[in-house]
């Protein structure tokens, strides 16, 4: 099943099950969705529940939040999370903090979804990853699916959750197909929020990743296996809450960690994972944690430059090797 289909079926089933669920965003209705994720929904549920909005992220996000304040369960689609910055006050100051500030009197059962991170050749203003921005904020839950199973299970969980959820999809994954079991296809299928998945078991090094990078990490694991390095690949699925127990359990087993993400290095998801491992499993580390991230530059457009600005499979392989062969800290190896 393609990820696109997985998302579409999840939306369809949740809208069918609960009349309070509605979808709103630019081009979600008549156009069938900018990336066709909402195909067929306008026809099936009508314009009351599938709303084509005017162009104002701040406006329609505010409206979605207000609707969630008062009884509805909106799914607000951003054409890309880059545009969510125009609405970020509503997401953080209104959606994330309102339950706390109102002392539980107002709940905000809203989902913000859309493509996140880099696509292909779309430049600086369409390529940023917002996982660490949103995941730093208490009151939000932040999910990042990889496979079709993830897409279905996590989106359904997000829609049913009474808290505000930021759901980070990936444009390049929409067209990818994954095998799905009958259980996944069932309309009651749901994945727990806050639990990572071990995509591939291993014993020599733990590699954490989310979204598109999971695929890259799995490819890296294949290459490493030929070298006799058995990598354990963790698909985070949930950025907030982060499945610290699962990551720690894995690192305590392998003693080495590589974190992988597309986003900018400073204050990223890998930094948080590294800190949490130091806090909980310092004694188990046999090598410093390796961070693989996007380059610390706004995304360039030219294809060759873009490739250099994003993690590639080889980068992950090299990082895993460094983690496995090196027992001397990098700092000691530097010559200043």
């Amino acid at each position, binding site marked *: 099943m393609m990820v696109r289909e997985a998302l579409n079926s999840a939306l369809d089933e949740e809208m069918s099950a609960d009349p309070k669920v509605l979808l709103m965003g630019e081009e979600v209705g008549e156009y069938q969705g900018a990336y066709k994720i909402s195909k067929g929904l306008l026809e099936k549920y009508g314009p*009351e529940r599938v*709303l084509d*909005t*005017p162009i*104002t992220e*701040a*406006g*329609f*996000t*505010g*409206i*979605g*939040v*207000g*609707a*969630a*304040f*008062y*009884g*509805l369960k*909106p799914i607000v689609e951003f054409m890309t999370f880059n545009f969510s910055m125009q609405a970020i*006050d*509503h997401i953080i*100051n*209104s959606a994330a903090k*309102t*339950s*706390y*500030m*109102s*002392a*539980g*009197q*107002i*709940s905000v059962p809203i989902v913000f979804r859309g493509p996140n991170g880099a696509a292909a050749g779309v430049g600086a203003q369409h390529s940023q990853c917002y996982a660490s921005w949103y995941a730093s904020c*208490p*009151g939000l*839950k932040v999910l990042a699916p990889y496979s079709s199973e993830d897409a279905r299970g996590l989106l359904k969980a997000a829609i049913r*959750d*009474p*808290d505000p959820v930021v759901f980070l999809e990936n444009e390049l994954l929409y067209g990818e197909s994954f095998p799905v079991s009958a259980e996944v296809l069932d309309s009651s299928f749901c994945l727990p929020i*806050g639990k990572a998945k071990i995509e591939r078991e291993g014993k020599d090094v733990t590699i954490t990743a989310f979204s598109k990078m999971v695929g890259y990490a799995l490819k890296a694991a294949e290459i490493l296996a030929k070298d006799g390095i058995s990598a354990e690949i963790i698909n985070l699925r949930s950025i907030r*809450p982060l499945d*610290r127990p699962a990551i720690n359990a894995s690192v305590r087993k392998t003693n080495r960690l590589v974190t992988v993400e597309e986003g900018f290095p400073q204050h990223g998801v890998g930094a948080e994972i590294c800190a949490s491992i130091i806090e909980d499993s310092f004694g188990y580390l046999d090598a410093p944690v390796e961070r693989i991230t996007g380059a610390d530059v706004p995304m360039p457009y030219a294809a060759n430059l873009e490739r250099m600005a994003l993690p590639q499979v080889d980068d992950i392989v090299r990082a895993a090797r460094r983690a496995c062969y090196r027992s001397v800290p990098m700092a000691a190896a530097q010559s200043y």
Partner: protein
Amino acid sequence: MMKTVSTITINLLCQALDFPGGKVAYISEMRFISESNDKRIPCYRLLDDNGELIEDSDIDQISKEVAVKMYSEMVTLQMMDTIFYEAQRQGRISFYVTSVGEEATNIASAAALAADDVVLPQYREPGVLLWRGFTLEEFANQCFGNKADYGKGRQMPIHYGSKKLNYFTVSSPIATQLPQAVGAAYSLKMDKKDACVVTYIGDGGTSEGDFHAALNFAAVMEAPVIFICRNNGWAISTHITEQFRSDGIAVKGQAYGIQSIRVDGNDALAVYRTIRAAREIAISEQRPILVEALTYRVGHHSTSDDSTKYRPADEIEYWKMARNPVNRFRKWVERNGWWSEKEESELRSSIRKQLLQAIQVAEKTEKPALGNLFSDVYDLPPSNLREQEKQLRETINRHPQDYPSDVPM
């Protein structure tokens, strides 16, 4: 070349153009629409500055009960503001925002609504809560952030909220409540409820992008929402001449396809009638309405402001005395034989006692318990917060002398 009037008329009638958006007549004489109309939008008022009815032909009388309640609540609001402001000056609460000068806009608009109408305030509308039954104790508890505060001590003073009274918790960022109100109205519309949403904004707040998005959307979605703009002349130190160049806010309604009206915000009777009518239209026709209430912010923006630094003291004094909405309404109520000096002094003395008592009690009430630091972040407490609370409690038990004694465990 000047065409005669009749030639222009014939041109207009015969030649209409088809464009997305409908038919539009065309004209071959270039004319820019003026940036302002010759006459400003007139202001609806029923009582003159002396509290005398200007014309009683099209007014359905409000009952004595409602009028007396309105007046009493206006006095209560006025006194609450005075005493709570003083409490802040004395260092007993950290912050306060008064609504002095806007008592009529607050109380009369609230009186015109039904209990089911959902209110999304800005922050200068505690009178709406007062009308609906929020007690002086409840106001005081929120300002002191004690354990009886419905907000569990989470917010700065004046950030009141009451689910029971359909008044959404005050949120500091300006104008965010406007598109949220449209969303809530959409929800009401889907429920086909016999109610509307009412949201308030100041003159300054209309500069925010959210104002544009909200009005635009409300019109497109045909949402039953009343936008009440308290045009009180000042946004902290920014006078309205520096805020916008339009004829106030009422003129903007038509730009969005929304019916609008300008009312004398200091005339309790006119405000009451206007909001009653607006509510009727909003609900029966399922459309938004824009109401601009002209008034004056007599007080400072907040206790963090000293407005004498940017406006003349005699301007403030003028509005406080000569254009006082409470006095004005009092004169009308008294003229009807519904109020007297005796009732006035009894009311004021009683309210004053209640206020001082409320503050005293709220001040002494315990602060919220430690668990409230961690609850309500999510629907269910996440494991990291449960862990942190456990660790914190253990640490406090081991080193009680290092922790403040006024935090109940």
